[in-house]
């Protein structure tokens, strides 16, 4: 396998958990709520998926459990931010630590448990496409689901009635209120759906990618997802591209090392973060105008509709 295709394959494999979380965070931010607790939702999703898959032997039940766990944790965030008017950023961090603590506590029994895991499936026709076949279509089922999720989410955000309501909730909530539509309900749904998707991202990490549950195993990928969302301006296709870019940056180091290349390991480890920072610097200015106005609420007196 060539270096490029190996890095890209690894980029998709490793970027998928970030992709799910970032797509979820896009939905949440479209609705006007930043959720820094994404990392916590991923942890809850990773543990719940691994635990349920281990107990039931059913992978998809595991994924469902991951989604529910991620959604439940984000519900805590939604309650404090939306119903209690708490600071979004601070609440998000608190929710992260809540997730970390809960999963550390309840995860003890599952560190040594054996769970079934998703295996790569070589898709018949698609897999034989030159170049992109082996990169994109020799992955696990959750990766394929994410391929479908991206355009679906794009359609929902930009073309569906629910998408209009969602964006209005984030941009001009007073318009919704004037039309007698409950902003709060839409924002709750947005945050919880976002958390559920982060939970599925965590599930991919535990029952597909690493095949293990381990305390704090997300290791900052939830924060990377939040950063990806910002430089991708909450647009699903760009979010996916950003997640794969980060995944590829992570895959670069082992791919080079396993070929015996002499490289500065520590500089290479910084690549994913430098890439993200550069993207934020380069794109941040331009993207700022597109930021949902609701995200600025943290600096205003909470005005809950």
């Amino acid at each position, binding site marked *: 396998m060539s270096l490029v295709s*190996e890095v890209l394959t*690894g980029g998709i*494999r*490793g970027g998928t*958990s970030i992709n799910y979380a970032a797509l979820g965070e896009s939905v949440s931010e479209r609705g006007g709520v*930043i959720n*820094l607790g994404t*990392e916590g939702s991923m942890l809850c999703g990773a543990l719940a998926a691994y635990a349920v898959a281990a107990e039931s032997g059913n992978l998809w039940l595991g994924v469902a459990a991951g989604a529910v766990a991620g959604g439940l944790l984000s519900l805590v965030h939604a309650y404090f931010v939306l119903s209690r008017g708490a600071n979004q*950023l601070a609440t998000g961090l608190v929710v992260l*630590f809540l997730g*970390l*603590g809960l999963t*550390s506590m309840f995860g003890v029994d599952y*560190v040594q448990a*054996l769970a079934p*895991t998703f295996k790569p499936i070589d898709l018949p026709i698609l897999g034989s496409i030159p170049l992109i076949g082996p990169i994109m279509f020799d992955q696990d089922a959750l990766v394929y689901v994410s391929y479908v999720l991206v355009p679906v989410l794009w359609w929902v955000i930009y073309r569906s009635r629910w998408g209009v309501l969602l964006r209005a909730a984030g941009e001009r909530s007073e318009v919704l209120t004037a039309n007698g539509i409950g902003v709060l309900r839409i924002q709750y749904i947005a945050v919880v759906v976002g958390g559920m998707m982060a939970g599925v991202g965590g599930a991919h*990490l535990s029952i597909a*990618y*690493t*095949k*293990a549950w*381990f*305390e*704090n195993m997300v*290791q*900052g*990928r939830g*924060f990377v997802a*939040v*950063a990806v969302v*910002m*430089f991708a301006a909450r647009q699903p296709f760009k979010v996916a591209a950003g997640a794969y870019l980060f995944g590829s940056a*992570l*895959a670069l180091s*082992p*791919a080079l*090392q*396993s*070929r*015996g*290349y*002499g*490289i*500065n*390991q*520590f500089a290479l*480890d910084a690549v994913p*973060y430098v890439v*993200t920072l550069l993207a934020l610097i380069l794109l*941040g*200015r331009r*993207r*700022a*105008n597109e*930021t949902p*106005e609701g*995200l*600025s609420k*943290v*600096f205003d007196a909470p005005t809950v509709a």
Partner: protein
Amino acid sequence: MKIRRLGMLAAAVALIAAACSSNTTDNESAASDEPAATTTPGATAGTGAAAPAGDAPGVGAAKVGFIFVGPKDDFGYNQAAFAGSEAVAAAHPDIEVITAENVPEDDNATRVMQKMVDDGAKIIFATSYGHLDPALKIAADNPDVVVVQQGNVITGTIPPNAGTYFGTVYEPVYLAGMAAGSVTESNKLGFIYAFPIPQTIANINAFELGAQSVNPDAETYVVNTSNWCDPAKQAEAASSLIAQGVDVLTQHQDCTATITKAAEEAGVMVIGYHADASALAPEGWVTGSEWDWAALYNDIVDTALAGEFTGSKYNANFRVGYKDGANPFVQSAYGPMVTDETQQEIADELELISSTGSPFAGPVTAQDGTLLFEDGEVPVYDEIESRNSAFVEGVIGEIPQG
């Protein structure tokens, strides 16, 4: 304007948090663990007061403290150390063993250990490599407390109440390398490590030298993860190595399940580290090395209790190996692919290492052709780690320079 400021602020928070996540989170869990778990409820501080007077450090300890860098059930390093602390509790029913998990390798460790001392602990085991500096600080501040550190090396003068200890990990790793060299078909072995510390470099070299001793064509490909436990990085490292044709994987990581399962799933063989993980790889398990700390921990505790710590072998950079007959790092069980013949060869080598041999018996040549160990030389334990300053010939990869 407000919006942009917010965006940048949030982005900055997100990135800083991402880059420092392990620290932040470790702090958090360390803090939550701080009311240290009690393994054996037992004697109270009164015992300490009643103990023989004298200023020898550690004498009359009523409590012994252990700190671990990770959780106590990681299928690896910390689990083995925790099991050792339980053995101390079992062997000393009148001593209270206090433990703290997830103690980061920074000032938090100082704080947690000082708390243990304040609570009456007079013997402290700091069980992670990076706990050394905090441990030395505690030793300097509390001359009546024995502080021993697992795996690192004190350079310069060793305080009268401190020391480091470890098994000679590279000995069973050398034997495991022999097994790897005999079962590989591609002659490519993979080694996933965390950081290029001397102990790890010695391990990688021993693994390759062991493999070469039975299979001159065997090469070891190395990948590091810059983290003692990041399962996603481990998964990526494993798949990169497997893509290069590696058919036996081994590792020096704190948590070991991901790499073991990745190997099993890809149909390649695996050699364990820290713990027997053969249950995770019924097809591909070759052998491995695992910890059994009970005897060593108990002997350190007994030495300190008797007031004999200062000047003892533990008041040094103590390394115990097969030559002393009590290496706490032992061989794991063999998998079905290791032939009786190979097992016999390994048993013979074990006997040799236990008497007059060494995994690093010269000549040992570094990648650049220089001699690490002279022809005919059998290095002593004290020197082995520090003299493994480069990868040996046959290791594919470079030591990352900071």
